[in-house]
């Protein structure tokens, strides 16, 4: 099993974090959070991957065939749903921020300090 997907997952996690820390736009920030979340998709799918194995759909393959791990795929799907919920909520808040503050730059919100 190649280490390459793990490197990609780690990279996505860090680059997403970097994006959130330096973001100047809430929509950009939400996308960075999604990038960060996608690192977990890559990680989970890489964990379950078996070289040369089939997709875990047992309808049309003989039993006993080696398949990739279906558990991590289920986890990834759940994870995607969670991420979609969070992203939708955050984008709604970003819209409200634009309405109330007239800006979507986290540097200029500043209603809460100290």
């Amino acid at each position, binding site marked *: 099993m190649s280490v390459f997907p793990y490197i990609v997952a780690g990279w996505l996690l860090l680059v997403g*974090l970097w994006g959130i820390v330096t973001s100047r736009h809430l929509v950009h920030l939400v996308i960075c959070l999604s990038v960060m979340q996608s690192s977990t998709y890559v*990680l989970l799918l890489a964990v379950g991957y078996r070289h040369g194995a089939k997709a875990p759909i047992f309808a049309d393959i003989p039993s006993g065939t080696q398949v990739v791990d279906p558990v991590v795929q289920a986890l990834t799907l759940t994870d995607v749903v969670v991420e979609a919920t969070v992203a939708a*909520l955050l984008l709604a808040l970003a819209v409200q921020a634009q309405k109330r503050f007239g800006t979507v730059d986290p540097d200029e919100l*500043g*209603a809460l300090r100290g």
Partner: protein
Amino acid sequence: MAYVPLAVLVPMLGATFLAAARELLSRALADAVSLALGIATVTLCAIALAHSVDHTIVYWWGAWTPRPGGVALGIDFAFGPLDAGMAVFAASLTVIAGVFSWRFLAEVDALYHAILLVFLAAMVGFSLSGDLFNMFVFFELMSVSAYVLAGFKIDQRSPIEGSLNFAITNSAGAILALFGIGLVYSKTGALNLAQIGDQLGRHGVDAVVVAGFTLIVCGFLVKAAAIPFHFWLADAYAVAPTPVCILFAGAMSELGLLGVARVYWTAFAPVLDPHAEALRWTLIAIGLGTAFVGAAMSLAQHHLKRMLAFATIAYMGLFLVGIAMLSADGLAGTAIYVVGDGLVKAALFVCVGIVQHRRASLDEVDLHGRGRDLRLTAGVFVIGSLAIAGLPPFGPFLGKALVEDAAAHGHGLWWMPAVMMIASAVTAGALLRAGARVFFGWGSAGQPDESSDEAEGETEPETDKPHDHTPVLMWLPAVALLLAGLAWGVLPGLADAALRAADRYVQPNVYAAIVLHGAPPEPTTPVSLSASGASYLYGVGAVVGALMVAAAGVTRLRAVDATRPLFAWLRKLHSGHVGDYVAWLTAGVAVIGTAFAITLR
């Protein structure tokens, strides 16, 4: 065993019904339905608690029991009295928050109740779950509904920003936890906590285990608001509707710590137990740091809810110290401390809510002397502040005393009681100072000694204008919560029962045998636990210290001026900027991960 799934399904389906029928329901009907569902959930969780007293209850969803040999493919709820007790507590606080919302939040519809019930369902599910990934899913469900509740007053400025900071920081933390779960799965091929523990125990510690453990623990510590992950909490609590604060401060943050405790004792203890000493010091350092940052920051606040939020952070630090003992007596003390403190803190939040209802303000300076005729509220607030400082025989005293005894006698940390006494004295002192100014008009009115810029933009009232009287549904919860906090401290046999439960909690092999192999419970040995004589001295010491801190704050001693640069520096760190928060989060994970990598080998 039908009560187990129903404990989650009743609030969840109830929420669906309320959301679907929201056009048809009047406000009173929505209140009544959600209250009935809340009480039903409390009852179901209480049944679960009663059943789990003697035996860890394992419920396999869809009857997918483990294969012979202990391979769990199904998903289980597995809980003892501590887990079920937390579920009962969270559900009870939800009911109280619902009662308090009745008159406090004038303009909400059934959607508010629906989200409150989803939040409850997630908390109950998280409390009972025996599966690592399901813990994550319930954790996220809890978080998402909490983001919505925090930003419920969406037409005002600060709730938007508070909810954004809360949501982004906590989502980043949850992603880190999920990354850790992925790493653990890659190592063990298991998601069931007992099976993970079983698998990890066969291997030694390696880089993947340490990385997975770090990420999962840090993910939960974000919710528990340990430093340096705590920044979001004050923003979220300051802007959330006060009834929601009761739930946030009493149950949600504590569930983060429950996550740490459960994951450690069920999944990681078999492999990390030889390194318990090193782990203990790391957790103690985080816990005490959190306690003192929270204490100092609550002293620097003038916004009453923000002050209570930092007080919450301070006490979360002390709870973490209790868990850090990594022993049954420390855990038993923490469990009692969490509930006792949660009850009293909820009473304080209700008091602040009453002040807000009557005076349409939350600023200590603005409110100076304006609370003079709120006698009952003043009484509850002052007694509550003394109780969370550690006034015997209130619940927080008992919990704090047991944690102190565990540290001093169990682990030779003789200095710990004194340090915990100082932290709780400073925190409670800040609350007493605010109480003295607001309810008695002590000290001089006018400008505060520190710049109170945090109050700007946060003063938008939740209840638009001051009201003439306090409705019974507001003062009754305050008094009831305070009395419950008192009862919790004097309940006979509570400490013994908590120790028996904690004793089972800290034995991963017993847990694994019951979950994976359906083993019968081991007979529990009778134990007894009570607060030592010295802890009464520390309790009284904390109360005296709190009164001194409050007096110094009210009279504005010259010595207070000398500390101003420290507070200014500390407050500057709490910038309200979400990028800073996530930078702190990243740095914190790196530091804690390095500490674990060095010490856990």
